[in-house]
């Protein structure tokens, strides 16, 4: 299970990458593995504001629907439109081309985990 060191993680299995005044958001390798092959991604509209824990959108596999949540508060600056035609990027490159949205805002004050913390969290979850 890949867990890159340079990202922060939410307990709901999203990752964030801080890029100046904004953060990009995706789901972890573990989350995409649990979900199975993603066949459909529903993304929020650019400009919409979200609080921490709000549902940002949905990821669907053949078998199931799963929401992804806002790991930080912010406004949607950009969504990954490639996922409309290539939803499988969420599986194939969950930390790269499979990113979901970019939000304004920062990770300050949010209860996020670093890579070691997320790894430990996953081990507890599966224990």
């Amino acid at each position, binding site marked *: 299970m890949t867990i890159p060191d340079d990202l922060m993680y939410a307990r709901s299995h999203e990752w964030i990458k801080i890029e100046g005044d904004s953060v990009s958001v995706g789901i972890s390798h573990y989350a995409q593995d649990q979900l199975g092959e993603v066949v459909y991604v529903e993304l929020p509209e650019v400009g919409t504001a979200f609080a921490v824990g709000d549902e940002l959108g949905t990821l669907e596999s*053949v078998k199931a629907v799963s929401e992804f949540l806002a790991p930080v508060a912010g406004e949607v600056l950009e969504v990954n439109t490639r996922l409309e035609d290539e939803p499988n990027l969420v599986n194939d490159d969950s930390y790269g081309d499979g990113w979901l949205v970019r939000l304004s805002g920062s990770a300050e004050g949010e209860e996020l985990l670093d890579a070691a913390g997320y790894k430990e969290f996953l081990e507890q979850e599966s224990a």
Partner: protein
Amino acid sequence: MSEVGVAAKTPLFEEHLAAGGRMVEFAGFELPVQYTSLTEEHHAVRTRAGLFDVSHMGEIAIRGPAALDFVQLISCNDHQKMAVGRAQYTGIMYPEGTFVDDTLVHKMADDEFLLVVNAANRHKNVAYLTELAANFDSADVVDLSNNFAQLALQGPLAEEILQPLTPENLGELKYYRFIEGDIMGTAAIIARTGYTGEDGFELYVAPSAAPRLWREILDRGQPHSVLPAGLGARDTLRFEAGMSLYGNDIDNTTTPLEAGLGWIVKFKKGDYIGRDVLERQKEEGVERKLIGFEMTERGIARHGYPVLLAQDDTEPFSYVTSGTQSPTLGKALGMAYLPIEATEVGTEFFVQIRNRTAPARVVELPFYSRKKV
């Protein structure tokens, strides 16, 4: 027997774990929803072959001199002319003409039929049939579910892979027929039946014989990239083939005529449970019918999503009975009951997907049928 709340293990439980099966509870059994990839397993069955553990299915024998009469009483299909070694699909009926269950009836002998029933309905069926048999001379209902493990090998390569394991001539075994024979030295019912829309076999063996047979089939299938396949692929395969799932597409509120299963409803036979209702429905015509549909814009309709006849309707007409992204066809497809006047192919309606309504269009069922050679 499983206790309430405690999932039972099939004889192949350890095989599933060894193969990396993602185990879920289904109808009281721990079964794999998938191994490595639902879509890979799905495509394996369509193009090569896949092996399923369906040991959770129930097997109920009807025995005695009046076995045929009893089966004729509970079933809407006509089993009078069945020869030994034939299997026939039917519905076990309530007096309302609705489904207790759908089942495959196997004629084992003139005085014995074997009903293969849904796992979730096993105890309900046994109770229902036993009560009916109490008023019925010389027909006994025997639950044999614990005597059988069931493996389903499905896909175009099924015969080629299975043939070396049995002295029976599988090439001569036609669709919906079975033989009681030998596989790997063990007694088996070998039936050319399935729930995937592909050619294939359903194999009924003693639980103790199942693990060795499972491993052998997978070993022999390995050069052909045959995969073990889970409940997820079983559902998408049967769905594409337009086969009903009890609890989704048919249940105790729907009749076979409404479900598009008119071909299993026969009237050139004696009286049977539900006959009067079905006969009246046949004469007057059904008011609603199960149809197939495709989504015409983005979005996947799923079981339970509200079905709207017009976009601004506030009350749903019904709910999607089955729906998913079809792995073979690459489209979001579904099934639902619509008013009979809205069931023509091409008719538009709407499915509520979370907070929006998405347009859908009636299409022909089944979504997929294999090329007959």
